[in-house]
């Protein structure tokens, strides 16, 4: 298994190189540059030209790429033109927010998904199952942005149960207990919004697996041994039905750690998803580059994580 992990991580290297080159080139050919957005009308065209030359704007692309790689290897991914901060530091700030939001979203999503999946699977075609299936259809059809706005309108604007957005109130001192409590408080509504939507995959998967396994051969064998129905469910049906759900967890983690662009944007939550979209709009290419590469790495690691989870939970699968 270790061999496979090493192999996968090694494959990551050429992937990142090719990806970074591609992004770098694309970014390079986009019209406008970081200066376009913040041109002070007072700055003379001659001064602009001088700045551009000074920052290497007219260098050929491979020189720029070489410079970028050299810096990147030293941990310098450039500086955000918008925030005047090193990219790494900027992403570091946002990554923490996204990480905790992702964790909470996952907990909600899997908690609800497993619970409702079990109910729907066990009581197939009963009213409870029908209600849950109806919910999955509605959630599937619901655009994330619309659902986020509805939740903000109802729970924050009308009922005042939760804040409208952001990640923490400015009044609290960093590091104090009220500060963390407020962070948690800000996270609940966006996490709930995401969790309620992302959970449908888990519900549907689990429901179908449970229904399939209910009359599978080995479950009939267990019945023929005289195992009580309750135990059959927990030992034979549920554990087997959980396998595909577990195998998707790795992808889900990667997906959520990338930051949900829509939810973070609508809730104006300072995470990586929002940073990504803002950086694109502001042509803050150093940040965009770094984020895309980060997302790619996360995706590959997510697949690897899924494979590892599979080998842990399913004895039939052994990666060599």
């Amino acid at each position, binding site marked *: 298994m270790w061999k496979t992990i090493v192999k996968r991580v090694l494959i990551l290297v050429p992937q990142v190189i090719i990806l970074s080159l591609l992004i770098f080139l694309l970014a390079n050919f986009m019209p406008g540059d970081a200066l376009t957005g913040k041109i002070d009308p007072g700055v003379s065209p001659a001064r602009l030209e001088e700045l551009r030359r000074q920052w290497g704007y007219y260098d050929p692309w491979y020189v720029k790429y070489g410079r970028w790689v050299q810096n990147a290897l030293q941990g310098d991914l450039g500086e955000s033109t918008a925030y005047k901060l090193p990219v790494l530091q900027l992403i570091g700030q946002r990554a923490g927010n996204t990480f905790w939001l992702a964790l909470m979203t996952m907990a909600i999503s899997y908690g609800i998904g497993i619970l409702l999946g079990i109910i729907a699977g066990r009581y197939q075609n009963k009213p409870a199952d029908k209600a849950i299936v109806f919910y999955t259809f509605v959630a599937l059809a619901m655009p994330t942005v619309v659902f986020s706005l509805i939740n903000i309108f109802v729970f924050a604007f009308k009922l005042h149960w939760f804040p409208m957005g952001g990640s923490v109130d400015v009044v609290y001192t960093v590091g104090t207990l009220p500060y963390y409590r407020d962070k948690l408080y800000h996270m609940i509504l966006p996490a709930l919004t995401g969790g309620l939507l992302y959970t449908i995959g888990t519900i549907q998967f689990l429901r179908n697996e449970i229904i399939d396994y209910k009359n599978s051969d*080995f479950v*009939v*064998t267990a019945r*023929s041994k005289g*195992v009580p129905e309750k135990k059959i469910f927990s030992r034979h049906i549920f554990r087997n039905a959980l396998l595909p759900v577990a195998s998707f967890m790795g992808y889900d983690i990667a997906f959520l750690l990338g930051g949900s662009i829509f939810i973070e944007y609508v809730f104006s939550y300072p995470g990586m998803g929002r940073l990504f979209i803002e950086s694109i709009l502001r042509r803050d290419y150093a940040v965009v580059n770094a984020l895309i590469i980060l997302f790619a790495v996360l995706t590959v690691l997510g697949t690897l994580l899924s494979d590892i989870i599979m080998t842990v939970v*399913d004895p*039939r699968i052994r990666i060599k």
Partner: protein
Amino acid sequence: MEEEKNKMVRKELLRISNLVTSFCINGHYYAAVDGVSLGINENEVFAIVGESGCGKSALALSILNLHNKAHTKVEGNIYFKGKDLLTLSTEELNKIRGRDIGMIFQDPLTALNPLMKIGAQIEEALFYHASMNSRSRKKRALELLEQVGIQNPGLTYSQFPHELSGGMRQRAMIAIALSCKPSLVIADEPTTALDVTIQAQILDLLGRLQKEIKSGIILITHDLGVVAEMADRVGVMYAGQLVEIADVKEIFLNPLHPYTRSLFASMPNSPAGGRGDKRLPVIEGMVPSLLNIERQGCRFAPRIPWIPASYHEEVPQYHRVKEDHVVLCSCYKNFYLRKGRG
């Protein structure tokens, strides 16, 4: 003679009486087992033979009520140790399942839980039926694995089903079925998924263990060779009905029902069939599907059109030909095989 005597004193273990098992298809119930009555004696191997779709597996699952209840109806009576199994609640039935009646299935790969070690799957049956602590359960599981001829019980105990060969898996399955020394074992095509040499080993093993624990076996199979090797008595099924029941020697030497005769004759290299280069006598047509069974009169009549309708009974009755030989419908009296075309 000694054998004959033993037969006389044999006690009946299980009595199936007018069993009807129907499956729901598009809102209608169709009987896959249609009025089967049958007695199984202690310490005997009763083989139920027939081609696919004749209802033999549906019959096997009905005994312990293992069908999917959502779309199956099981009617009639199944008496076992003074109780009618079909009237018992699931909880009451669970006391009998695995303890008094064990089951062996066709495909040991799908019939074993892929996520549970073999040892745990054997112990599971012991857990609910025997008051043992975990140490003695493990000891018993290892014993059982040794009994079914597994070379290294300690290793197999902690292996998963996919790590075993087909024959080993079926041995483990047999260990599960026999773990509580049941008085009846239902074996549904136990060797169909195996190679011939493995099949021979498994059949010999089953025969040896049957003699040891003196249980009755209901052996469901389509393989007449397996019947000849294993069975004491044989019931032949066609279109949901038992068409003939007889002692094993009797049925091979003197098959009477037209279906039995045609079936035995179509076996390559059987005494009745074509040995060598001869053409095999065949039954034209095929086993009717569940929805197309002609439920009036003799169900085999459409496939032997050269036998005049007057030879069949309107409502086929069982005829006792000999003490241990029963045939359905009177058409057997005037039946002759016709060499089939193509």
